[in-house]
């Protein structure tokens, strides 16, 4: 049986050589169980070593290999060639991020936003280690568990038209992470996150397009997290109006 093949149209950008990006067409062998990442690795190993992209675990947990595949943000380690056959398959860097080189985008904005929501346990009083673990019931764990599953792959930012049009938007993953900590029974830091999360560049910029939750490979449901924070934000506003003397 003749070996089947499939064409990849890959976005190339070599800032050392060119001002504008181009697309390069490659033909790779088609294998039933290959994912797009396997095809890219084949290209880099055998055809064109200058193709640059990020990857590592190839099992959908490290979040490195997010790219646009036929216009949809996907983890290329989880995008099977057989779902695109006979192709061609267009591979581009994640949308809404500046492109550094080929399929590699600049993540500085996200990293800064991640830090800005104070994604750590905040407590007035730390319990000493000698007293053991904080008690947390399975129900309390279930409250925030879903929102702790984010692998920081940023497919949600690539899918969000608000982030694309207004880059100061805090964005789905960052807000979902803030929500994860706000819901954690051990955390007491909700008021510390308010300025950022209830700010005008955060939850109130979201128009509930929901595409972020559609593309999330880990079912974090950032859209749900943002709307739930909006409820919290609205209640907070009502409280501050009705009881302005209350502690913030």
């Amino acid at each position: 049986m003749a070996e089947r093949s499939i064409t990849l149209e890959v976005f190339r950008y070599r800032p050392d050589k060119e001002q504008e990006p181009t697309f390069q067409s490659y033909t790779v062998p088609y294998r039933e169980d290959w994912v797009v990442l396997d095809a890219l690795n084949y290209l880099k190993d055998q055809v064109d070593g200058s193709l640059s992209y990020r990857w590592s675990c190839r099992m959908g947990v490290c979040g490195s290999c997010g790219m646009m595949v036929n216009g949809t943000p996907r983890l290329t380690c989880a995008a099977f060639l057989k779902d695109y056959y006979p192709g061609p398959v267009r591979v581009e860097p994640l949308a809404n991020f500046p492109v550094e080189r080929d399929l590699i985008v600049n993540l500085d904005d996200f990293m800064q936003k991640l830090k800005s929501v104070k994604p750590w346990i905040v407590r007035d009083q730390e319990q000493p280690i000698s007293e053991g673990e904080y008690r947390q019931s399975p129900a309390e764990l279930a409250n925030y568990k879903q929102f702790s599953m984010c692998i920081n792959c940023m497919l949600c930012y690539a899918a969000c038209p608000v982030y694309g049009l207004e880059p100061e938007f805090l964005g789905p993953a960052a807000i979902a992470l803030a929500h994860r900590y706000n819901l954690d029974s051990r955390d007491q830091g909700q008021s510390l996150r308010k300025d950022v999360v209830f700010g005008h560049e955060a939850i109130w910029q979201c128009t509930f397009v929901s595409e972020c939750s559609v593309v999330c490979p880990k079912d974090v449901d950032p859209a749900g997290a943002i709307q739930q924070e909006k409820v919290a934000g609205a209640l907070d506003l009502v409280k501050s109006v009705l009881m302005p003397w209350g502690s913030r």
Partner: protein
Amino acid sequence: MKPYNRPISASWWLSKSSYLLFMLRELTSIFVWAFLIYYLVQLSHLAKGTEKYTAFLERHASFGWILFAVLALVAALYHSITWFNLTPKVLVVRKGEEKIPPALIAGPHYAAWLAISAVIAWIVLRS
């Protein structure tokens, strides 16, 4: 060595069906507002007396205005249904470790809507 910023086209919302449906959902609010204003105008004519009101109704029996009313109804329905279906994402109720099924959050919204509509229909139709 500068990063390259890809421009976003003004027709971004035509590139995906989910984006298009989102835009239509948002646009339904224009119809809802328009119909509300129309209704207030209609009420103000009602306040001016039977003659003025009858004239108003005759003017607005044309095909164009009926089409507007139908479109506004469809838009309002789409607006309400998408909203009700999204409520389980916003209101999360837990029983122990499990979330209660989304149907039990959206369901009461639909039920309340039907109940109120039934009451209004009864008031309007019995006269």
